[in-house]
């Protein structure tokens, strides 16, 4: 049933009575303008009659849910209070239209609270498309002007109506006092209930937010943690693989818990030195099953020289992971005003720097060359049995920027 403007009442009625939908719509609009009975009738039909594809009506759903019923009843009593006050003030000009408009408002609330999710989505679209009352995030002067105009009109209208009933010092004064007492009575009777209903509503919203967060967390735990645990169980016979899996999971979880902002910004923002270093940590840990303890002090944007430095650091970390024979490599990187320095250290078997095989010397010299092109320097200090430390220092130039 897509033949609907608001609640689909006219469309439904037309197909039932076998008359033209357009005729019925025109009649409905006329009945709203003339006396406003149309609003009440439309609301009653909307609430009481289920749509073709649903088995329960909106009214049925609201009555069936205690909380929704409470909200609607609280609102109804408030509306009743307003109506009775208007009556007491003797503003006959309001009369029937006020009753219909306000009971229409109650009906709208019932629809809002009881509508099915699909219907809610459509209603929200309809409201957002409406030019004046819509909750569009349009915060321009136009919206403000519209609101100011409507507000001013209502205030002036109210004052005019009041002075029509008599001057403030005269008859209207007694009426006003009566009205205030009346409102007071209503407040004493119903205010606690109204307050509780409002509180329930905000609790409901909070609960929904929390439930969403929980669902988010649960899906993450499922996606990554449970999967990893499964993989770990499967490869229980292979200690190296278990360590590797556990390490990947640990790093991911840490990242997620302590550095949530990093996750979101990686795609669209330029990588910084810290991000590039974290990438090395991840890559070397995953590829070689060796733990990298990465300690970063400061950060700076990436440029040509820093890229070379990160590349050399990757080289040094891979070497340590491959050759040192130990399971933990410490990488300390510090960004200072006039230099960036990186130290890659392992406590493995070490070697005699002057007697390294040709292939390793090649890697070392590629590290050295790469750094030298940007004015940096590499120092390798090691001796058999004492581990190894590679120091990479890159000067920073601020003048040419």
């Amino acid at each position, binding site marked *: 049933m897509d033949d609907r403007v608001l609640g689909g009442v006219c469309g439904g009625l037309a197909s039932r009575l076998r008359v033209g939908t357009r005729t019925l719509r025109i009649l409905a609009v006329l009945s709203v303008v003339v006396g406003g009975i149309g609003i009440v009738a439309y609301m009653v039909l909307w609430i009481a009659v289920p749509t073709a594809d649903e088995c329960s009506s909106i009214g049925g759903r609201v009555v069936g849910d205690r909380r929704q019923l409470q909200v609607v009843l609280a609102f109804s009593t408030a509306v009743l209070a307003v109506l009775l006050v208007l009556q007491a003030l003797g503003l006959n000009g309001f009369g029937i239209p006020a009753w219909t408009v306000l009971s229409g408002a109650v009906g709208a609330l019932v629809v809002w609270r009881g509508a099915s999710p699909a219907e809610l989505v459509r209603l929200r679209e309809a409201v957002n498309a409406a030019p004046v009352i819509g909750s569009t995030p349009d915060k321009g002067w136009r919206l403000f002007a519209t609101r100011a105009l409507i507000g001013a009109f209502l205030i002036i209208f109210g004052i005019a109506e009041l002075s029509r009933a008599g001057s403030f010092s005269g008859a209207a004064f007694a009426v006003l006092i009566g009205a205030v007492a009346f409102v007071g009575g209503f407040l004493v009777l119903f205010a606690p209930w109204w307050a509780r209903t409002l509180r329930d509503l905000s609790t409901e919203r909070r609960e929904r937010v929390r439930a969403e967060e929980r669902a988010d967390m649960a899906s993450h735990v499922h996606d990554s943690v449970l999967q990893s645990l499964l993989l770990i169980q499967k490869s229980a016979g292979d200690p190296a693989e278990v360590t590797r899996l556990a390490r990947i999971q640990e790093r991911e979880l840490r990242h997620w818990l302590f550095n949530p902002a990093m996750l979101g910004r990686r795609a669209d923002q330029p990588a910084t030195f810290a991000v590039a270093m974290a990438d090395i940590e991840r890559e070397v840990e995953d590829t070689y099953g060796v733990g990298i303890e990465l300690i970063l002090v400061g950060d700076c944007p990436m440029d040509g020289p820093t890229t070379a430095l990160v590349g050399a650091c990757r080289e040094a970390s891979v070497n340590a992971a491959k050759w040192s024979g130990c399971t933990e490599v*410490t990488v*300390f990187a*510090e960004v200072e*005003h006039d230099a960036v320095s990186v130290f890659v250290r392992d406590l493995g078997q070490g070697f005699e720097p002057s007697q390294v095989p040709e292939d390793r010397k090649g890697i070392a010299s590629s590290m050295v060359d790469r750094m030298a092109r940007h004015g940096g320097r590499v120092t390798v200090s090691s001796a058999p049995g004492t581990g190894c430390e590679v120091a990479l220092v890159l000067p920073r130039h601020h003048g040419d920027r």
Partner: protein
Amino acid sequence: MTVADRLRVFVVDDHALIRSGIRVELGNEVEVVGEADEVAAAIEMILERRPDVVLLDVHMPGGGGRAVLEAVTVLAPDIAFLALSVSDAAEDVIDVIRSGARGYVTKNISGTDLLDAIYRIADGDAVFSPRLAGFVLDAFADPTGQRMPVPPFDPELDQLTPRERDVLRLIARGYAYKEIARELGISVKTVESHVSAVLRKLQLANRYQLSNWAAERRIQ
């Protein structure tokens, strides 16, 4: 060392697995006089048993390690605390140090390193893991650099001396105290006194500057 003068150690951690793991790592070198899995019980038992060193988990329900620290140090200032955590969150780490812990190590520390740290703490020294050293270097950024968030409030407390900075850098690079002493040509005792001085600065420095730094790190 006879059984009688072994160090008395108390373990506070809300995970039974971690507690038993720590017991295994410590072996018979020290005497574990008790363990607790929540804040209130920990405070009560520590005050009753008076251990030399408390190994304290940073993250626990009911106020965390900080609540234990604050309650115990008022009544028994001679009990030394070593924070033990898996947390990478800078503000958590700085928080327990500022509440009075004399050191911070991560839970993947080896048994011998942990024992070493316990002895050091019991001797009144400070123990910095590479990560904590990194945090401190970051928090007390180089005053000649651009990253100084606010001008120092009290230069004596809010800045590190170049020598302290050197020591922290070497700790962050993974050097043991003995190696640091050799590298800088000073005695191990001097290294220890530098680290203790940094700890003091960390605990007393301008709160505004440090919390500012922690908040900045969180945003990153």
